[in-house]
């Protein structure tokens, strides 16, 4: 059983890896590339903890095969902060206590970033529906939604008290 040799781009860096057909992109990220920031909560597309961007589209990495990454550009939670500068979403998640246990946090951050990249001024309802594929069992979502709305406001340059 020959493994696939895959060349891809992850968080802007060119990366090569070997994988079996069966391995999902999530398996590859976690087990082959030691990028364990993407989490596995279900492996069936239901929880969003494994969210990544593939060519700019938000997907569950547990429902993408590793081989499908060939020639693609992938963004994960590990690429969100630029050096030691947090993305405004990361900063707002901390300030709003939008995480309790934190297992859902990488997925929420990646998904929320995809939202704000395409819609800089979402309503609360839009945020809630966009993030409906990300389960959080700890927070009841309240502080997560507030953090996203606040980060959006800050990124639009509106001052917030």
């Amino acid at each position: 059983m020959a493994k696939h040799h895959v060349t891809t781009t992850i968080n802007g860096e060119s990366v090569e890896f070997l994988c079996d057909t069966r391995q999902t992109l999530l398996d590859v990220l976690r087990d082959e590339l030691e990028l364990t920031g993407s989490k596995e909560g279900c492996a069936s597309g239901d929880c969003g903890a494994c969210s990544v961007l593939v060519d700019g589209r938000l997907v569950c990495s547990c429902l993408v095969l590793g081989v499908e990454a060939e020639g693609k550009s992938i963004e994960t939670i590990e690429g969100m902060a630029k050096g030691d500068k947090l993305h405004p979403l990361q900063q707002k998640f901390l300030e709003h206590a939008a995480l309790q246990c934190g297992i859902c946090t990488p997925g929420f951050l990646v998904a929320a970033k995809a939202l704000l990249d395409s819609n800089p001024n979402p309503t609360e309802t839009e945020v809630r529906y966009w993030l409906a594929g990300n389960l959080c069992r700890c927070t009841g979502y309240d502080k997560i939604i507030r953090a996203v709305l606040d980060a959006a406001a800050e990124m639009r340059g509106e001052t917030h008290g």
Partner: protein
Amino acid sequence: MAEALRKDFKIIGTRPVRPDGIPKVTGTAKFGADFSLPGTLFGKILRSPHAHARIRKIDTSKAAALPGVKAVITGADFPEQKNEFIGPERTAVNFWYMTRNIMAREKALYEGHAVAAVAASSPEIAEKAARLIEIDYEVLPHVIDVDAAMAPDAPLLFEDMTTRGVEPAPTRPTNVSKRLEFKLGDVEKGFADADIVLEKTYKTEAVHQGYIETHACLARYDADGQGELWSSSQGHFVVRNLTAKLLGMRLNDLKVNPAEIGGGFGGKTVVYLEPVAMLLSKKAGHPVRLAMTRAEVFKASGPTSGASITLKIGIKKDGTIIAGDAALRYQAGAVPGSPVMNGCLCIFACYAIPNQRAIGYDVVSNRPKVAAYRAPGSGIAAFAVESTLDILAKQIGMDPIELRLKNATRIGAPMLGGGKMSHEGFVQTLQAIRNHPAYSAPLGPNQGRGVASGYWFNGGGESGASVYVNADGTVVVSTGSPDIGGSRASMAMMAAETLGIPYDQVRAGVSDTTTVAYTHLTAGSRVTFATGLAVVGATNKVIEDLRARAAKIWGVDIEAVDWVDGCAKPSSSNVGKFEALTLKQLAAQASATGGPIGAAHAVNAAKQAPGFSTQLCDIEVDPETGRATVLRFVVAQDAGRAIHRSYVEGQMQGGAVQGIGWALNEEYIYDEKGRLANAGFLDYRMPVASDLPMIETVVVEVPNNDHPFGVKGVGEVNIVPTMAAVANAITAATGKRMSALPMSPPRLLEALGRPGKEV
């Protein structure tokens, strides 16, 4: 303690960023599944496809012969345990049952029950090997429902189990493992004196804690008999003790490292994988990683009991509750140990009822063994009592909060199980909801409002902490409590407040089982209270030491040195004219004044204060489809004192939303063969972001005088009233009374078809 009454805190009650925040927003934090060691093997557990089956024979030879397989184990590889219940009745454990739940022996007792395990060099080989294990099952009739399991002709899970707690001891085998009875006053007389007596039966389904992180661990067993575990749990000391006991190891031969934990809610207070992984590692001679899939989590871990409760309440026309009588039948899962005793002790605890009785039954059936879930047992009981009070309030034409206020427990009120109510707080949560603008806001058509209340003991118990001062004047706090929702921040805040230094001068962490004193679970809403006491105790020892060092430098008595605002100061001008010494200055001179500064402290904290919550729910029900939408939700809860305000609110919001899921859609659904039909998030249906409004919070603060800052636990009581608050809102919106959970669209639409108006 006077300090609890202080209000001039500098740090307590603020909202600083948690010390473990950055790794959790950048993806570098390590959770249970994120560890590996060189040469790690992959474990896989083979589970029973049958709800109930005798295991005639297990043949592992083919699996063991598969290249790449390094170990195969079955229940027979674990040492046998004594069949006895140890510890106080409310939390008693029996290792004979526990070892059988970890891995089946004579019988598989539920679908998903572990029957064997393998370790291999790749996950694929492990899976293949598991499939090669041959098991000769004799499939037996099964029983799922709690009332059905109590029937005299029900299939028996343990042919020799008799009911504990009955005099004289019965000889007839049964699925009822235990009967409990608690009484106050004279219930029969109470009912005779009542103007209205209402009896009703309520049913709830089993629900899962639903933490997003599945169970996972890494185990390494060394040739000298020592072992090391990396595991995400609500208490690595408990993981150590249980694993050691189940494997016959000495406590100091097992070191457990706490991974970050991705949610627990009670479900990670027990062990499932750790003893299996350790035994596999012992056999294989290599480290072993073991993780559950989501389906395994649903089928073989958690849930809390489904239950059936018959409740009778007698009330006077003026609203005085004069008698309450409850029979609570709780599913334990496949082996004994439901939270029915909690249900009995909590059911009437909010109210000063002169005549009360609660009878509890702990019932086994062919389901996974229940685990704690947020105020275990209390929410189920509250669903019954708070629904019935809603009905009675309407029957006597009284405002539901007025009725509760009239009967609210107060300090000194006798309680079931002995003892008296020792703390205030309940009345204040009722008042908070009554005074909230939501209570009088207008409602539209098909909308309704409900309120309900709840009680939870809260926990105390054993905790250890250490506090060290570094040479640069920064402070490190270590505890044995896994941080499940920001407790590192709270610990650092309490230490900083006590020392009188800024929050960011203190770092708090979680230490492994070899570096801090035994610390009980992160559960029972106990961490901020009990571990907080240990931290404050250790901090006070450090302050004592700092004063001694200042005294030494100044050449005065320690009594002549005060610790004020982070500095040592002469206690009066008589002591002499000395410049105050800051923590930083003292730390810099530590080598010269006696060496490193630090102290450890351990407590067995008592005098915890109970938690109360009152909640309001506005709901809209689509009259044609039975779909309910929560429009507004307000949680009032007594926190004693909020250390980190955001994390207190977060507990309240999270608990209420779990309760909303329990109320509306979550349930374990079994097929006719006793197999779980919805073992995944898609069909288990926990609330998603778009299902909910913002959850409004009112943090009530009636300080606990037995804690230096007034803390009560806040983690659990917030789920207790929710199911009843939702049910009461649904009745207000629809004129139909739902007495069974979940109140899912099909059930609600069926109720809407009933003739007549119900209250």
